[in-house]
């Protein structure tokens, strides 16, 4: 999955509210400000919409290399997520 498809899936997830947050090590990741309620899906949509391919990198998920982890860096924001059908999974949303 390239940048355009990843961005499309991410925006759809944020707009519909169909996503989950990864709980790494069984804990609430306080650096995930979307999970913590410190930013809203609408705030994240605003950041993602400004992203183009130059703001995107991708790498395999450490615990399962068949899954691609996408990172968007824009305006000081760092958004890390992957798609595990049928949901988008947030690892981190912070600045």
């Amino acid at each position: 999955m390239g940048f355009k498809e990843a961005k499309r899936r991410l925006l759809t997830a944020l707009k519909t509210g169909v996503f989950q947050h990864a709980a790494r090590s069984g804990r609430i990741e306080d650096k995930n400000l979307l999970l913590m309620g410190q930013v809203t899906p609408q705030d994240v949509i605003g950041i993602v919409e400004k992203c183009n391919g130059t703001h995107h990198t991708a790498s395999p998920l450490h615990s399962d290399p068949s899954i691609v982890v996408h990172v968007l860096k824009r305006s000081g924001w760092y958004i890390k997520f992957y798609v595990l059908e049928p949901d988008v999974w947030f690892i981190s949303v912070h600045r």
Partner: protein
Amino acid sequence: MKLFRPGDKSRAVCDVDGIVSTTFEYRDVPFADGKGQAKDILVGACDKCRRVLSIPPQSTPAIKAAREKADISIEASLPAVYAEALDLACYRIAPGSSRAFRKPLLMYYVHTCLVDKKASARVTKIVRRPDRFFTEGERVGMNKRLSLKISPHASAEIDDLTKRTKINRTQLFKSLIIKMRDDIITPKQPRNLRVLQTIAATVGR
């Protein structure tokens, strides 16, 4: 939006077991930074090792509340004339309200000034031009303590406003109370009365 219930199934990536099926259930989950935990939030647990793997968006309000539970105490020693003006403003809006309305009313003014640059500019202006009525009231020399327990979010808003207006917390409270006098106590009809009465009815009792 997708609403999960206890017993619902999904799937997730487990560090131990790879891609697994999960079952939603209520758990107490600690924060990664070690500062407390969110109790009884809905999570997705690994069907093989039972570890918590996922948290759905519907758990965010409970997580936010758990994080903000650690209230911060703020204290300010105000000349009595300011404390009484604050109480009178509360009384004018909701005569049946208790002192519990002090905090929501102050935070309403803090928040309004934060989102409205014109309002925060007016607060700065009040500090630069001392109000004669209050200045003379201060000369009496009697102080009253204002003690509030507020959430970290509310505390951050106060800090943001002190930075923006470049005044300290006590000066900020004094300026906001002078603004309350102008908005609520002096006019024939207090400004934003309906909104403030609704706030008082909801959280000021």
